[in-house]
Protein backbone atom coordinates (compact mmCIF):
# COMPACT_ATOMS: atom_id res chain seq x y z
CA UNK A 1 0.00 0.00 0.00
CA UNK A 2 1.32 3.36 -0.95
CA UNK A 3 0.61 5.98 1.60
CA UNK A 4 1.18 9.70 1.39
CA UNK A 5 2.96 11.66 4.06
CA UNK A 6 -0.36 13.33 4.91
CA UNK A 7 -2.18 10.08 5.69
CA UNK A 8 0.80 8.79 7.67
CA UNK A 9 0.75 11.88 9.86
CA UNK A 10 -3.02 11.55 10.37
CA UNK A 11 -2.70 7.97 11.57
CA UNK A 12 0.29 8.85 13.76
CA UNK A 13 -1.65 11.70 15.33
CA UNK A 14 -4.68 9.52 16.06
CA UNK A 15 -2.47 6.83 17.57
CA UNK A 16 -0.76 9.36 19.85
CA UNK A 17 -4.13 10.73 20.99
CA UNK A 18 -5.38 7.20 21.63
CA UNK A 19 -2.33 6.30 23.74
CA UNK A 20 -2.68 9.48 25.74
CA UNK A 21 -6.30 8.89 26.79
CA UNK A 22 -5.53 5.65 28.64
CA UNK A 23 -3.68 7.13 31.63
CA UNK A 24 -6.16 10.01 31.90
CA UNK A 25 -9.16 7.68 32.01
CA UNK A 26 -7.42 5.43 34.50
CA UNK A 27 -6.63 8.33 36.82
CA UNK A 28 -10.25 9.50 36.58
CA UNK A 29 -11.43 6.04 37.47
CA UNK A 30 -9.04 5.85 40.46
CA UNK A 31 -9.95 9.38 41.62
CA UNK A 32 -13.59 8.46 42.00
CA UNK A 33 -12.77 5.66 44.46
CA UNK A 34 -11.66 5.98 48.08
CA UNK A 35 -12.04 9.43 49.70
CA UNK A 36 -8.74 11.10 50.51
CA UNK A 37 -7.77 12.25 54.02
CA UNK A 38 -8.42 15.94 54.64
CA UNK A 39 -6.01 18.51 56.01
CA UNK A 40 -7.49 21.62 57.60
CA UNK A 41 -7.14 24.33 60.21
CA UNK A 42 -8.05 23.69 63.81
CA UNK A 43 -11.57 24.97 64.44
CA UNK A 44 -10.41 27.02 67.42
CA UNK A 45 -7.44 28.64 65.60
CA UNK A 46 -7.21 32.43 65.84
CA UNK A 47 -7.11 34.09 62.44
CA UNK A 48 -6.33 37.58 61.24
CA UNK A 49 -5.31 39.53 58.18
CA UNK A 50 -2.39 41.21 59.90
CA UNK A 51 -1.30 40.33 63.42
CA UNK A 52 0.23 43.16 65.44
CA UNK A 53 1.26 43.98 68.99
CA UNK A 54 1.17 47.14 71.08
CA UNK A 55 3.54 47.44 74.03
CA UNK A 56 2.58 49.96 76.70
CA UNK A 57 6.01 50.96 77.99
CA UNK A 58 4.44 53.22 80.68
CA UNK A 59 3.62 50.06 82.58
CA UNK A 60 7.25 48.96 82.88
CA UNK A 61 9.66 50.58 85.30
CA UNK A 62 12.57 48.20 85.56
CA UNK A 63 14.11 45.13 83.97
CA UNK A 64 12.32 43.01 86.56
CA UNK A 65 8.97 44.05 85.11
CA UNK A 66 9.98 42.63 81.73
CA UNK A 67 11.40 39.39 83.05
CA UNK A 68 8.12 37.39 83.30
CA UNK A 69 7.45 37.90 79.57
CA UNK A 70 11.00 36.97 78.61
CA UNK A 71 10.98 33.94 80.89
CA UNK A 72 7.67 32.53 79.71
CA UNK A 73 8.61 32.91 76.04
CA UNK A 74 12.04 31.38 76.44
CA UNK A 75 10.77 28.49 78.53
CA UNK A 76 7.85 27.41 76.32
CA UNK A 77 9.93 27.73 73.15
CA UNK A 78 12.96 25.89 74.49
CA UNK A 79 15.24 28.86 73.99
CA UNK A 80 18.67 27.97 75.42
CA UNK A 81 20.43 30.17 77.92
CA UNK A 82 24.02 30.66 76.81
CA UNK A 83 26.31 32.75 78.98
CA UNK A 84 28.72 33.80 76.21
CA UNK A 85 26.96 36.77 74.63
CA UNK A 86 28.40 35.93 71.21
CA UNK A 87 26.39 32.71 71.32
CA UNK A 88 23.33 34.19 72.99
CA UNK A 89 19.89 33.16 71.69
CA UNK A 90 17.01 35.55 72.25
CA UNK A 91 13.43 35.75 71.05
CA UNK A 92 12.32 38.61 73.28
CA UNK A 93 14.64 40.73 75.38
CA UNK A 94 15.19 44.24 76.72
CA UNK A 95 17.16 47.13 75.23
CA UNK A 96 17.84 50.68 76.41
CA UNK A 97 15.90 53.42 74.60
CA UNK A 98 18.91 54.47 72.51
CA UNK A 99 19.35 50.98 71.10
CA UNK A 100 15.68 50.34 70.51
CA UNK A 101 14.96 53.74 68.93
CA UNK A 102 18.37 55.10 67.86
CA UNK A 103 16.98 57.81 65.58
CA UNK A 104 14.87 59.22 68.39
CA UNK A 105 17.58 59.50 71.01
CA UNK A 106 19.10 62.88 71.80
CA UNK A 107 21.25 64.50 74.40
CA UNK A 108 18.51 66.29 76.34
CA UNK A 109 16.03 63.45 76.52
CA UNK A 110 13.89 63.02 79.60
CA UNK A 111 15.87 61.39 82.37
CA UNK A 112 13.49 58.47 82.75
CA UNK A 113 14.13 57.20 79.21
CA UNK A 114 17.84 56.82 79.96
CA UNK A 115 17.14 54.11 82.51
CA UNK A 116 13.99 52.48 81.23
CA UNK A 117 14.44 49.09 79.56
CA UNK A 118 12.33 48.48 76.45
CA UNK A 119 10.88 45.13 75.52
CA UNK A 120 11.94 44.21 71.99
CA UNK A 121 11.19 41.24 69.75
CA UNK A 122 10.79 40.40 66.09
CA UNK A 123 8.62 43.11 64.52
CA UNK A 124 6.94 40.79 62.00
CA UNK A 125 7.42 43.45 59.36
CA UNK A 126 5.01 44.29 56.60
CA UNK A 127 7.96 44.29 54.22
CA UNK A 128 10.46 41.99 55.92
CA UNK A 129 14.06 42.37 54.75
CA UNK A 130 14.99 38.97 56.21
CA UNK A 131 12.55 37.27 53.82
CA UNK A 132 14.14 39.02 50.86
CA UNK A 133 17.61 38.06 52.02
CA UNK A 134 16.89 34.38 52.63
CA UNK A 135 18.29 32.35 49.73
CA UNK A 136 16.31 29.20 50.53
CA UNK A 137 12.94 30.73 51.47
CA UNK A 138 13.33 29.24 54.93
CA UNK A 139 12.04 32.56 56.24
CA UNK A 140 8.70 33.56 54.81
CA UNK A 141 5.76 35.81 55.54
CA UNK A 142 2.44 34.15 56.20
CA UNK A 143 -0.78 35.63 54.82
CA UNK A 144 -1.66 36.75 58.36
CA UNK A 145 1.53 38.85 58.57
CA UNK A 146 3.61 36.57 60.77
CA UNK A 147 7.19 36.24 59.59
CA UNK A 148 7.99 32.62 60.26
CA UNK A 149 10.96 30.32 59.92
CA UNK A 150 11.05 26.84 58.48
CA UNK A 151 14.00 25.42 60.40
CA UNK A 152 14.02 22.38 58.14
CA UNK A 153 15.10 24.54 55.27
CA UNK A 154 17.47 26.95 57.04
CA UNK A 155 21.06 26.47 55.85
CA UNK A 156 22.53 28.81 58.46
CA UNK A 157 23.92 31.39 56.03
CA UNK A 158 22.87 34.23 58.38
CA UNK A 159 21.98 36.62 55.54
CA UNK A 160 18.72 37.25 57.41
CA UNK A 161 20.64 38.31 60.50
CA UNK A 162 22.58 40.82 58.44
CA UNK A 163 19.36 42.02 56.81
CA UNK A 164 17.30 42.44 59.99
CA UNK A 165 17.67 46.03 61.27
CA UNK A 166 16.33 45.05 64.71
CA UNK A 167 18.79 42.31 65.66
CA UNK A 168 15.83 40.05 66.24
CA UNK A 169 17.55 36.92 65.01
CA UNK A 170 20.03 34.64 66.74
CA UNK A 171 22.24 31.93 65.34
CA UNK A 172 22.83 28.56 66.96
CA UNK A 173 26.61 28.36 67.00
CA UNK A 174 26.36 25.34 69.30
CA UNK A 175 23.93 22.53 69.92
CA UNK A 176 21.33 24.31 72.06
CA UNK A 177 20.01 21.25 73.90
CA UNK A 178 22.53 21.13 76.77
CA UNK A 179 21.70 24.77 77.58
CA UNK A 180 17.94 24.38 77.92
CA UNK A 181 17.15 24.19 81.61
CA UNK A 182 13.54 23.04 81.41
CA UNK A 183 12.54 21.50 78.11
CA UNK A 184 8.95 22.00 76.98
CA UNK A 185 8.36 18.51 75.61
CA UNK A 186 5.50 19.63 73.38
CA UNK A 187 7.69 22.03 71.38
CA UNK A 188 10.76 21.17 69.30
CA UNK A 189 14.21 22.51 70.05
CA UNK A 190 16.50 23.83 67.36
CA UNK A 191 19.74 22.34 66.11
CA UNK A 192 23.24 23.66 65.61
CA UNK A 193 23.53 25.79 62.47
CA UNK A 194 20.09 27.34 62.19
CA UNK A 195 18.88 30.87 62.86
CA UNK A 196 15.90 31.41 65.14
CA UNK A 197 13.63 34.21 66.30
CA UNK A 198 10.21 35.02 67.76
CA UNK A 199 7.34 33.29 65.93
CA UNK A 200 4.53 35.43 67.41
CA UNK A 201 3.46 32.16 69.09
CA UNK A 202 2.16 30.71 65.82
CA UNK A 203 1.77 27.34 67.57
CA UNK A 204 -0.45 28.92 70.24
CA UNK A 205 -2.56 30.89 67.76
CA UNK A 206 -3.23 27.59 65.98
CA UNK A 207 -4.95 26.26 69.09
CA UNK A 208 -6.80 29.46 69.93
CA UNK A 209 -4.41 30.97 72.48
CA UNK A 210 -2.88 34.45 72.39
CA UNK A 211 0.93 34.78 72.55
CA UNK A 212 2.42 33.79 75.88
CA UNK A 213 4.09 37.16 76.53
CA UNK A 214 0.75 38.94 76.05
CA UNK A 215 -0.94 36.48 78.36
CA UNK A 216 1.45 37.11 81.26
CA UNK A 217 1.79 40.87 80.67
CA UNK A 218 -1.31 41.74 82.69
CA UNK A 219 -2.64 43.99 79.94
CA UNK A 220 0.57 45.88 79.20
CA UNK A 221 0.84 44.05 75.88
CA UNK A 222 -2.03 44.03 73.42
CA UNK A 223 -2.29 41.64 70.52
CA UNK A 224 -4.76 41.59 67.66
CA UNK A 225 -5.66 42.11 64.04
CA UNK A 226 -4.47 45.43 62.62
CA UNK A 227 -6.83 45.00 59.72
CA UNK A 228 -9.92 44.81 61.91
CA UNK A 229 -11.12 48.29 63.01
CA UNK A 230 -12.94 46.74 65.96
CA UNK A 231 -9.92 44.90 67.32
CA UNK A 232 -8.28 45.74 70.61
CA UNK A 233 -4.98 46.76 69.04
CA UNK A 234 -6.74 49.24 66.79
CA UNK A 235 -8.57 50.63 69.80
CA UNK A 236 -5.34 51.04 71.78
CA UNK A 237 -3.59 52.60 68.77
CA UNK A 238 -6.42 55.09 68.34
CA UNK A 239 -6.32 56.15 71.97
CA UNK A 240 -2.55 56.54 72.39
CA UNK A 241 0.46 58.05 70.69
CA UNK A 242 2.64 55.19 69.49
CA UNK A 243 6.01 54.83 67.84
CA UNK A 244 7.64 51.98 65.97
CA UNK A 245 11.29 50.97 65.78
CA UNK A 246 13.31 52.39 62.86
CA UNK A 247 10.17 53.24 60.95
CA UNK A 248 12.16 55.24 58.38
CA UNK A 249 13.66 52.09 56.95
CA UNK A 250 10.32 51.19 55.41
CA UNK A 251 10.06 47.69 56.82
CA UNK A 252 6.63 48.39 58.32
CA UNK A 253 7.17 46.91 61.79
CA UNK A 254 4.13 45.32 63.40
CA UNK A 255 5.10 46.06 67.00
CA UNK A 256 3.98 49.46 68.33
CA UNK A 257 5.21 51.22 71.48
CA UNK A 258 3.25 53.58 73.68
CA UNK A 259 5.84 55.88 75.31
Amino acid at each position, binding site marked *: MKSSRRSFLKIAGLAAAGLGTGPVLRSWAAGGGAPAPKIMNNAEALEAKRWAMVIDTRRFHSADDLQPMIDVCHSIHNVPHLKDHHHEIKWIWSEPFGNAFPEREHEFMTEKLHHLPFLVLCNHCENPPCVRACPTKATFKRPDGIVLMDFHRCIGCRFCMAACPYGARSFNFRDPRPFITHTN*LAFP*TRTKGVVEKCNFCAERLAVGQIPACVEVSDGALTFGDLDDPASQVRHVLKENFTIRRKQGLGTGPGVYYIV
Partner: protein
Amino acid sequence: MQNKGKIITGLVIFIALFTFPFIYRMGKAAPAPDVVLTPKALAAKQCVRSTDYMTAEHMQLLDIWREKVVREGQRLYVTTDGRAFNMSLSNTCLDCHSNKAEFCDRCHDYASVKPYCWECHIDNPKGEKQ
Protein backbone atom coordinates in the same frame (compact mmCIF):
# COMPACT_ATOMS: atom_id res chain seq x y z
CA MET B 1 46.33 -9.14 20.72
CA GLN B 2 49.34 -8.37 22.82
CA ASN B 3 49.40 -8.79 26.62
CA LYS B 4 46.34 -11.01 26.43
CA GLY B 5 47.38 -12.96 29.51
CA LYS B 6 47.88 -9.88 31.65
CA ILE B 7 44.61 -8.27 30.61
CA ILE B 8 42.52 -11.36 31.28
CA THR B 9 44.27 -11.98 34.60
CA GLY B 10 43.64 -8.37 35.53
CA LEU B 11 39.98 -8.63 34.58
CA VAL B 12 39.54 -11.83 36.57
CA ILE B 13 41.12 -10.23 39.63
CA PHE B 14 38.97 -7.12 39.22
CA ILE B 15 35.74 -9.11 38.92
CA ALA B 16 36.69 -11.31 41.85
CA LEU B 17 37.40 -8.29 44.06
CA PHE B 18 34.33 -6.39 42.88
CA THR B 19 31.91 -9.24 43.47
CA PHE B 20 33.56 -10.45 46.67
CA PRO B 21 31.15 -8.65 49.04
CA PHE B 22 28.15 -10.08 47.23
CA ILE B 23 29.51 -13.64 47.04
CA TYR B 24 30.74 -13.52 50.64
CA ARG B 25 27.30 -12.59 51.99
CA MET B 26 25.28 -14.68 49.52
CA GLY B 27 22.34 -16.39 51.17
CA LYS B 28 23.08 -14.70 54.48
CA ALA B 29 20.84 -11.66 54.18
CA ALA B 30 20.10 -10.05 57.51
CA PRO B 31 16.49 -10.78 58.48
CA ALA B 32 14.06 -7.89 58.32
CA PRO B 33 13.65 -6.39 61.78
CA ASP B 34 10.56 -6.92 63.88
CA VAL B 35 9.09 -3.62 64.90
CA VAL B 36 7.41 -3.58 68.27
CA LEU B 37 4.04 -1.91 68.66
CA THR B 38 3.21 -0.39 72.02
CA PRO B 39 -0.06 -1.49 73.69
CA LYS B 40 -1.49 1.92 72.80
CA ALA B 41 -0.60 1.50 69.12
CA LEU B 42 -2.05 -2.03 69.13
CA ALA B 43 -5.25 -0.84 70.72
CA ALA B 44 -5.68 1.85 68.05
CA LYS B 45 -5.51 -0.92 65.38
CA GLN B 46 -5.22 1.56 62.51
CA CYS B 47 -2.67 4.35 62.08
CA VAL B 48 -3.64 7.52 60.19
CA ARG B 49 -3.37 5.53 56.96
CA SER B 50 -3.21 1.81 56.21
CA THR B 51 -0.26 -0.14 57.60
CA ASP B 52 1.11 -0.79 54.11
CA TYR B 53 0.98 2.89 53.28
CA MET B 54 2.60 3.87 56.56
CA THR B 55 5.40 1.32 56.18
CA ALA B 56 6.29 2.43 52.70
CA GLU B 57 5.29 6.08 52.61
CA HIS B 58 5.48 7.52 56.13
CA MET B 59 8.30 9.80 55.09
CA GLN B 60 6.17 11.32 52.33
CA LEU B 61 3.30 11.71 54.78
CA LEU B 62 5.58 13.47 57.26
CA ASP B 63 6.88 15.70 54.50
CA ILE B 64 3.33 16.75 53.63
CA TRP B 65 2.56 17.33 57.30
CA ARG B 66 5.64 19.49 57.70
CA GLU B 67 4.75 21.55 54.65
CA LYS B 68 1.14 22.04 55.75
CA VAL B 69 1.91 22.86 59.39
CA VAL B 70 4.90 25.12 58.89
CA ARG B 71 3.98 26.84 55.66
CA GLU B 72 0.20 26.91 55.72
CA GLY B 73 -0.53 26.68 59.43
CA GLN B 74 -2.97 23.79 58.90
CA ARG B 75 -2.57 21.35 61.73
CA LEU B 76 -5.56 19.04 61.62
CA TYR B 77 -5.49 15.73 59.74
CA VAL B 78 -8.84 14.03 59.24
CA THR B 79 -8.53 10.40 58.13
CA THR B 80 -10.85 8.73 55.63
CA ASP B 81 -12.73 7.12 58.51
CA GLY B 82 -13.26 10.50 60.16
CA ARG B 83 -10.72 10.47 62.98
CA ALA B 84 -8.91 13.79 63.56
CA PHE B 85 -5.23 14.09 64.46
CA ASN B 86 -2.95 16.97 65.33
CA MET B 87 -0.20 16.82 62.71
CA SER B 88 2.81 16.56 65.00
CA LEU B 89 5.68 14.10 64.89
CA SER B 90 6.55 14.33 68.57
CA ASN B 91 3.09 14.88 70.01
CA THR B 92 1.01 12.59 67.81
CA CYS B 93 3.17 9.92 66.14
CA LEU B 94 5.30 9.36 69.23
CA ASP B 95 2.26 9.45 71.47
CA CYS B 96 1.38 5.94 70.27
CA HIS B 97 4.80 4.90 69.03
CA SER B 98 6.55 5.93 72.21
CA ASN B 99 9.14 3.19 71.78
CA LYS B 100 11.42 4.90 69.28
CA ALA B 101 14.26 2.41 69.83
CA GLU B 102 12.14 -0.64 68.96
CA PHE B 103 9.95 1.04 66.38
CA CYS B 104 11.69 3.78 64.40
CA ASP B 105 15.33 2.93 64.96
CA ARG B 106 15.15 -0.79 64.20
CA CYS B 107 13.91 -0.28 60.68
CA HIS B 108 16.03 2.79 60.04
CA ASP B 109 19.15 0.93 61.14
CA TYR B 110 18.24 -2.02 58.94
CA ALA B 111 17.63 0.22 55.94
CA SER B 112 20.72 2.27 56.83
CA VAL B 113 18.88 5.55 56.76
CA LYS B 114 19.75 8.24 59.26
CA PRO B 115 16.91 10.72 59.55
CA TYR B 116 17.90 13.76 61.59
CA CYS B 117 14.37 14.53 62.82
CA TRP B 118 15.47 14.01 66.43
CA GLU B 119 18.07 16.74 66.43
CA CYS B 120 15.15 19.14 66.95
CA HIS B 121 12.01 17.09 67.52
CA ILE B 122 11.88 15.59 70.96
CA ASP B 123 12.01 11.79 70.82
CA ASN B 124 10.53 11.27 74.25
CA PRO B 125 7.59 13.68 74.36
CA LYS B 126 6.10 12.24 77.52
CA GLY B 127 9.37 12.58 79.38
CA GLU B 128 9.30 8.93 80.44
CA LYS B 129 12.37 7.41 82.01
CA GLN B 130 14.08 5.20 79.45
